[in-house]
């Protein structure tokens, strides 16, 4: 990446990037820890406390929602437009995918529960890809 003075980030870019990292970091660390706990069956996550540990994933999820909203509020008007368009694409993919999985499940095409998780992950990746594509020519 070109880091020449001409292409350096503006002060508001730097401040936003720092705030973005601080907003996302707790959720990402929590998700990583919860994954490890679930993977290794620690603290009863494989037995009696399974429901508790599963639902605890909602906490970092809600934290991410908070981070996204705060990021949108901090963004300037052009960035906000790009982010909203990318979010709309990701949301559209998620709704379509989950609706399709639901239809297939109702039609009795096997057990598709894993596909719900995959739809969720794919929609996040598509959201990020759409944002990078939208802003690639202006970097």
């Amino acid at each position, binding site marked *: 990446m070109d880091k020449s003075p001409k292409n350096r980030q503006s002060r508001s870019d730097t401040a936003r990037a720092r705030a973005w990292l601080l907003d996302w970091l707790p959720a990402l660390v929590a998700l990583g820890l919860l994954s490890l706990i679930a993977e290794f069956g620690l603290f009863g996550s494989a037995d009696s406390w399974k429901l508790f540990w599963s639902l605890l994933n909602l906490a970092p999820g809600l934290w991410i929602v908070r981070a996204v909203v705060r990021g949108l509020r901090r963004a*300037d008007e052009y960035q906000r437009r790009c982010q909203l368009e990318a979010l709309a694409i990701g949301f559209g993919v998620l709704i379509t995918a989950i609706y399709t999985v639901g239809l297939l499940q109702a039609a009795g095409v096997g057990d598709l529960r894993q596909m719900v998780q995959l739809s969720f992950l794919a929609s996040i990746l598509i959201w990020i890809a759409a944002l990078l594509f939208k802003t690639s020519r202006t970097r």
Partner: protein
Amino acid sequence: MKNRLRELRVVRRWSQTDLADRLDVSRQTIYAIETGRYDPSLPLAFKIAAVFGEPIEGLFFPDEDTDSAT
């Protein structure tokens, strides 16, 4: 819309980042405005006009090709 942002910025020997810092926006936003990919809101247009010390109508012009259709 067309604009004279790049022209006025270059005359002052400001980089896109310099202008972004003065307007408290991202460098991407400056690039998008200069290349006509994005038309700024009225508040940002006023801010740009103030930074350059020019009236808004001296900075932004209707693009005959695209604006006449609307």
